[in-house]
């Protein structure tokens, strides 16, 4: 039988939650997961989170959209030459408008794909430690630890301001 235990601590405020993450780290423990009802800068800073790679998806999507826009307009105008209003067949200034729109389109759609890929979305599967209170008004810190450490974890998170601490077999 495994002695792994999952401790879940609830907090009423983001600051207390962030404080618990820092205190856990100082005590040599690690928060496995944090749940928040809204985006919290304090929690993100306490976790020392890296910047999301979605940025790269947006950049590449935008570049692809831009290249696609110019390829579409220049390529098709050259393939099907049809002179209007005395303008050159390949008229770059008006083509910039279409390339710009496709840059935005490519970047936005690519960013959303990146978000779905990195956030591992798509399945409504349970996440260990999740409680419905975390989409309401509570902040949660989940710590995976050995059974012998449960008391110490509980002490650290209570000292940081946890309103409720519970544990279950992990």
């Amino acid at each position: 039988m495994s002695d792994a235990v999952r401790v879940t601590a609830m907090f009423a405020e983001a600051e207390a939650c962030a404080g618990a993450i820092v205190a856990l780290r100082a005590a040599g423990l690690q928060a496995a997961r944090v749940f928040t009802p809204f985006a919290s800068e304090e929690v993100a800073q306490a976790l020392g989170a890296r910047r999301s790679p979605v940025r790269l998806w947006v950049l590449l999507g935008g570049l692809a959209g831009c290249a696609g826009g110019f390829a579409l307009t220049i390529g098709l105008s050259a393939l099907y030459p049809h002179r209007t209003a005395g303008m050159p067949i390949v008229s770059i200034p008006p083509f910039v408008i279409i390339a710009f729109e496709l840059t935005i389109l490519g970047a936005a759609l690519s960013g959303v794909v990146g978000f779905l890929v990195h956030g591992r979305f798509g399945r409504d599967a349970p996440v260990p430690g999740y409680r419905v209170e975390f989409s309401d008004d509570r902040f949660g810190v989940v710590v995976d630890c050995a059974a012998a450490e449960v008391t110490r974890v509980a002490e650290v998170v209570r000292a940081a301001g946890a309103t409720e601490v519970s544990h279950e077999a992990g």
Partner: protein
Amino acid sequence: MATPELGYADVNRLVLKTLSPPGRRYWLGVACLAAIVGAGFTAWMYQVRVGLGVTGLRQPVMWAFYITNFVFWVGIAHSGTLISAILFLFRTRWRTAVYRAAETMTVFAVMTAGLFPLIHLGRSWFFYWLLPYPNQRGLQPDFRSPLVWDAFAVGTYFTVSWTFLLMGLIPDVAAARDQATGWRRKFYGVMSLGWRGTDEQWRHFSMTYLLLAGLATPLVISVHSVVSWDFAMSQLPGWHSTIFAPYFVAGAIFSGCAMVLTLLIPMRRMLGLEEALTAWHFDNLAKVILGMSLVVSYAYISEAFMAWYSASPLEIETFQQRYWGPYGWLYWVMVVCNCVIPLLLFSPTIRHRLRALFVISIFINVGMWVERFVIIAGSLATNTIPSQWGVYRPSPVEVTITAAGFAWFLMWFVLFTRFLPIVSMTEVKEGIRWQRQAHRAGEEAAP
């Protein structure tokens, strides 16, 4: 202040209450709107069967009600992106409670706008000729034409607006899922894509949302600029003007913010959202409207000045016709609605009276629709050849389809309000946290 007494849990309670099953009066209202949409669809089918001759479109006015509706609805869409994206980048706090409604309005306004070029085509089934595809005639859509730019711009705007709205909905729909039962739980479960609010999910969400806001900002300005170039790129006096892009963008924000007021004031009462949508939000929206009204007024004066300063007889005659010609009375209606009545918003007392704001917003909606009509049909009616001049009068088919456009927009908006969260719970909670932090900082700074 925004929402002084609300706690985080109160926000969920308030907003999720709006998702309770609606009553008979609600469905009766939806049925009435659907009936008007049905009448418009019937009128459109009649036009398809008989031809564009059933409209009032005659030489020289071949763009009138339908294109007016297109420009008006694209303009309405703009304030949604202003409030949701541009004010997000500036971290404007009053936007949190109103942006979802404005963003929803954007999506349905673009949906409505997109219908009108199709209806105006006459042979609507050939809409795909705008798309670049190889064909036997060896012809491609002309990428140098503003109409093709428009197809790309509005198509991109439609896609990005939907994406932005759906992205922002994910955490709120997850909160709705956690409280819902039955089919709604399944529906919200699918829509929330498995969101649980973990630190990893928020990390990617925040970055994606920020970048989408950054992308939507230049996009929204480009879209109405492109729409304005549909006119400004032509040689027609009254249309051919370099100020059209900023003029149209300012008008779009102006009319869109007014439409937000028109929708939010009754919605707030019907859905019991008085605690979330306070006088503070409406006061700020009214200030934006007032600012935009001054910009639009400046544009009207600038246009007149440039016509006089150009010393071009064609320009001068066009503007004289605009002020004193067959549509002159509409021009002065527009000036009163867009330039004079909004000046009342200088008064803080009026900005805090919701009924007064509602009435003013209706005047602005009317004024902005009339502005589009005066620019489009008015300029065409008095073109460069006086012997061709003519007055356009809308036919019952056009009036019915225009009314159906309003009903179509309202129907989708009303349906949205009872099935998806119309106020962003996560962002209102962030607003509460800001307030608490500011309150604490104030207490600490106090002697």
